[in-house]
């Protein structure tokens, strides 16, 4: 406590009542910090448990009560990567990557101009347009499943990763337009006017003024779209077969009603989660900026 007092600058005009108020504030900060840590731990514990289980043997992983200190093994990971002639996860991981990256790129290509036309230079009745975008998310996904399956069957698009990428694009586009619109709306009119006064054209304004401001927003939107596409299971399970199978469908294949599978599933889940985790960590700074920008909005 004394260290805190030493470090904290003491205002010259401090009143006698000031000290207890500061202490109360500090105590409040400690409590809030503890709560934040507790919530953080609650989120992390299942992941840590999954990590630990993935390094256990199947009987140890399934034991009840759990054996926390059981010997560690890489068997779950070996099985996942197809040791001993088993199936390889790489085709399904590549399929997921293809669908997720492609749909994210196309979504951004379409969402950014749309958001521009809804915020910086709003088109007439832009609120109706926004509502229209949102209304496309109101139909339960499952209600469209059968018509889409039949369409894909008659069009020869079953088990086709490009078709899946197209579906993911259409599913994520409304969200991306809404997100990008809120980020673009944050760009202060004053700096656009200042740029215009300084003689900057539209291209230069977009490149040097708007782009730096909305880059965190683009990062956040990309990651959200990537995660949604990467994790999607319902359409992937129904529409893909042996060629276009995605990682989540491959992952469910480890669940069996006969025999033990917990360690393998944990290993597989961790590997499948890695690309999203890596993307999240890589864009951490931009994400915090981007997501908090949206939150303030």
């Amino acid at each position: 406590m004394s260290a805190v007092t030493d470090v904290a600058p003491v205002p010259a005009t401090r009143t006698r009542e000031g000290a207890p108020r500061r202490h109360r504030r500090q105590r409040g900060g400690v409590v809030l910090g503890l709560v934040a840590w507790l919530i953080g731990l609650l989120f992390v514990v299942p992941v840590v448990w999954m990590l630990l289980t993935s390094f256990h043997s199947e009987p140890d992983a399934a034991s009840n009560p759990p054996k926390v200190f059981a010997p560690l093994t890489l068997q779950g990971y070996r099985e996942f990567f197809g040791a001993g002639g088993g199936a390889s996860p790489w085709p399904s991981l590549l399929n997921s990557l293809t669908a997720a990256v492609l749909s994210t790129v196309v979504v951004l290509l379409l969402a950014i101009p749309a958001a521009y036309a809804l915020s910086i230079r709003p088109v007439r009745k832009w609120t109706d347009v926004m509502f229209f975008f949102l209304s496309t998310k109101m139909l339960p996904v499952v209600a469209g499943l059968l018509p889409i399956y039949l369409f894909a069957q008659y069009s020869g698009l079953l088990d086709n990763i490009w078709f899946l990428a197209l579906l993911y694009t259409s599913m994520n586009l409304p969200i991306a337009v809404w997100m990008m619109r809120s980020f673009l709306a944050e760009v202060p009119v004053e700096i656009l006017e200042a740029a215009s006064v300084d003689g900057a054209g539209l291209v230069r304004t977009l490149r040097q003024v708007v782009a730096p401001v909305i880059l965190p927003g683009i990062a956040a939107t990309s990651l959200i779209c990537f995660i949604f596409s990467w994790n999607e299971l319902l359409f992937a399970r129904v529409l893909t077969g042996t060629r276009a199978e995605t990682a989540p469908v491959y992952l469910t294949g480890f669940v069996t009603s006969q025999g033990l599978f917990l360690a393998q599933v944990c290993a597989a889940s961790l590997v499948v989660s890695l690309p999203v985790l890596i993307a999240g960590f890589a864009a951490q700074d931009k994400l915090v900026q981007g997501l908090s920008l949206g939150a303030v909005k």
Partner: protein
Amino acid sequence: MPRCMRHGAGLAPMIVATLAVTGCAGWGGGPGGGGGANSINVLMVNNPQMIDLQKLTATNFTKDTGISVNFTVLPENDVRDKISQEFSSQAGQYDVASLSNFEVPIYARSGWVAPLDSHVAADPSFDQADILKPMTTSLSGQDGKLYGEPFYGESSFLMYRKDVLANAGITMPATPTWPQVADIAAKVDGTRPGMHGICLRGQPGWGQVIAPMTTVVNTFGGTWFTKDWQAQVNGEGFRKATDFYVGLVRAHGESGAPQAGFTECLNDLEQGNVAMWYDATSAAGSLEAADSPVKGKIGYVAAPVVQTPHSGWLYTWAWAIQQASTKKDNAWKFISWASSKQYENLVGSQVGWSRVPAGKRASTYSNPEYLKQASAFAQPTLHAISSADPLNPGVQPRPALGIQFVDIPEFPDLGTQVSQEISSAIAGRTSVDDALNRGQKLADDVAAFYRSGKASG
């Protein structure tokens, strides 16, 4: 107008900038899976025997025939959904699928699967006569044609810890009755710390609690439906059996019984949490595997009975060819290899004899190599499968095939709904009477449909 043009021109660099930020659009490559003219697609359930098959296919079948096999492996419930969707629409994505003897006759009636008789006739080395008779019967359609070839088959029997019973001074009869089993469960319950008397499935699902419980119902004199489609779920035999089953699980059953299925019970017996287990004969392969903690400690006897001479169920995962497949000849070559004697020998020599997909061929049970490794459970398994009678499993005539199920398309839904009631009764949330009365209403709706003659089958 010029203003609009300026806006439009301004978007192009933004698109380019976006591309630069998100990575070039040409990335990604083609789909990751395989395909081709000389390949077939197989959709199958994720059971250990199938995973062994998947591992052995490329180095054996593909190497010998040049036919590559692309597998999709899914959990049981998911694979049923996917096969039903695929076959009912005749999408033709998959040439071969793993179907159980529940689906094969129903799919055959609908014309979704191709008859195999001509393939069998042209392939004498397959030796159809070696396939156990109850298997062939259960995989044939009403038209008498064969629609599926078994990959492995199972019945049900009682597994028990020989050492635990011996310590308690108990001798297990060769064909025990259910009251005897209940008596033994009471005696061995708690003889070791954390050990319960018996494991019986309690997990909801027509393939979970309903399977063993229906065999108990059969031998107690009950049935789901009479020959003329009268629902009997709250009939005397069904009620007695359910009272007995629920009472036994609640008194001497495993921990967490309302959630316990095959996997949980297998784990409980391996971990020493239960002394007995009534379930599928295929469990013996896992119990006697080299890394099993209870290898050599388990005894196997026939399914317990009351009024019938036998009460074991009959189940098989079999291969069937989709009618819409354009590669039926290649599909048959795969089936002929996967269900052959040679494949059993291959598994025996490369994976282990206790992992052989047994329960379908008579020759398996005269194979000295197999008997050497599987001696503990080979004869009880053969006896259980051979005694199973899907046409006449109880004390009264039945309207449809099936021992642990009624072979009608409505049964999975009906069975699952009733199973939820029974699971609730096991959990103590409802009484057996209430559970069965609610089940009776559901069963009566199905029975009324069949009585009305609207069902084509």
